[in-house]
């Protein structure tokens, strides 16, 4: 059995007076794709925010790659290997597509400050960006402002950037939101590739159950801030209460 990359134990998160997450525990193993589902307001995004350090934790522990990360600020957690995709697409729209990717390459390689003066570094940068653009089918948009891309292309750019970052744990929040069905296949392919070919561990929040069930090996269901169910997509699909939540009586 492969080692655990993400371990969440008895997690409690409170925002103001309201307890958003209560006693949530789960493990994610290396290379695994885990989906998180649940009705609106059940705490899915709060869970990712707590893991990535954007929200303080009331009680419980979070470990990544065997290291307790509770006392680390968000940027240090990212350095440690947590790459995060956002519900509203974490892309800098006022930068070009190329600049968005350059930032990721600079972070991953820890480029020296003089890299723009060095031909060797510039060539390395160019090769890394060309490869990322080709994989995301965005080569023709290299010099375009990211803000002019469609919703689906923005998602692909975000994924391309997450792939470049050195993290081995990807937390992705609703990747298909605002994405045309035709581009969802591309997204699914990229996420699968990240997991299978690059050995990344992926945790995805998603409302499109068909998309998620085809992608994830394990599903965690949150209801009212608590873990309601955990199992294979088949087990979750058969759960009656969940069917009522998603598809009504």
């Amino acid at each position, binding site marked *: 059995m492969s080692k655990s990359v993400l371990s969440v134990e008895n997690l409690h998160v409170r925002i103001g007076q309201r307890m958003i997450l209560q006693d949530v525990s789960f493990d994610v193993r290396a290379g695994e794709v885990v989906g998180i589902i649940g009705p609106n307001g059940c705490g899915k995004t709060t869970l990712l925010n707590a893991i*990535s350090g*954007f929200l303080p934790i009331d009680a419980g522990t979070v470990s990544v790659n065997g290291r307790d990360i509770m006392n680390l*600020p*968000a*940027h*240090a957690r*990212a*350095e440690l290997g947590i*790459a*995060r995709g*956002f519900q509203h697409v*974490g*892309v*800098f*729209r*006022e*930068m070009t597509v190329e*600049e968005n990717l*350059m*930032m*990721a390459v*600079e*972070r991953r390689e820890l*480029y020296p*400050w003089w*890299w*723009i003066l060095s031909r060797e570094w510039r060539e390395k940068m160019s090769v890394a960006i060309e490869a990322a653009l080709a994989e995301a089918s965005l080569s023709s948009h290299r010099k375009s402002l990211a*803000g002019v891309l469609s919703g689906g292309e923005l998602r692909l750019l975000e994924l391309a*950037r997450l792939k470049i*970052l050195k993290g081995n744990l990807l937390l992705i929040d609703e990747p298909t939101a605002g994405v045309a069905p035709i581009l969802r296949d591309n997204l699914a392919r990229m996420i699968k590739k990240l997991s299978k070919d690059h050995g990344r561990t992926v945790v995805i929040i998603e409302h499109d159950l068909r998309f998620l069930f085809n992608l994830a090996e394990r599903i965690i269901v949150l209801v009212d801030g608590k873990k309601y169910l955990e199992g294979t997509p088949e087990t979750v699909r058969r759960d009656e209460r969940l069917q009522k939540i998603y598809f009504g009586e």
Partner: protein
Amino acid sequence: MGYLFTTIARVWETSLAAIGGHLTLSLGGILFLGFPAAFWCGSYGYAVAAKAGASLGVSFAVGIGLAAIAGGIFAFFYSRMSNDSFAVITLASFLALEALIRSWDSVTGGVLGIAGVPRFSFAQMLRGLVVFEAYVVLPAFILESFLANGPFGRSLRALKENRIVLTAMGTSPNTIGKTAVVFASLFAGVSGILAVSRVQFLDPTLGGIFLLTQTLTIAIIASTPKTLRLLGVTVTIVLLPELLRFFSLPLSILGHSRNALYGFLLIVLIYYATYNVSSKRHV
């Protein structure tokens, strides 16, 4: 020729403060209004040390050192508060420092100021000073271009657009913002040293709200990471009041009218610059 050299020197001096405004406000969206305070730290540090008999090299270092301390204090506040609170704090620092300068007669000369501030021996004549300032300002522009178009500049622009995403990429927004604030304070401090060595007289009317207005106007109009645009906007903003000399205004209201007209022109420039930027964003 004296008028020409003075104008060029003013462009160089304003450029330095503008570089700080460009890094903080234009690129990073950091509401740093402490330019006059850093400018005075540089200028008074240099003037007081020089008048006390220190060599000009040491006086220069004292000015830069004080500006760096001011930058460090601003950076501390930046990491502890929201952007709008930071704007108020930095503005208040300028008012507090002005009050201190006006009341601390024994050191700053109070409202009477400090007269006879010496210049470097190789810059005794105005022409030599302009050349010396060019040697300081041109490398500063190269550094600015390097910073603005490199990883630091991209991080600053990312900070302005979405600090959460920047954080999620493993960069500390606080570190980026604090570095920009320290750079801006240092540039404003050097600007103060150069200005006082040109004027050779220092009181709180040098710099102050006029410098702040000019710096912020330049920062708003030169909103892209292009350094040449920054230089162009700086030249325009500094030369604008000089153009008003060619209008025949009644002598009794000449000074006030020029100030009012200059203020009006700045508003028009800012309006059109920001209108163009926002209309592009809508597309």
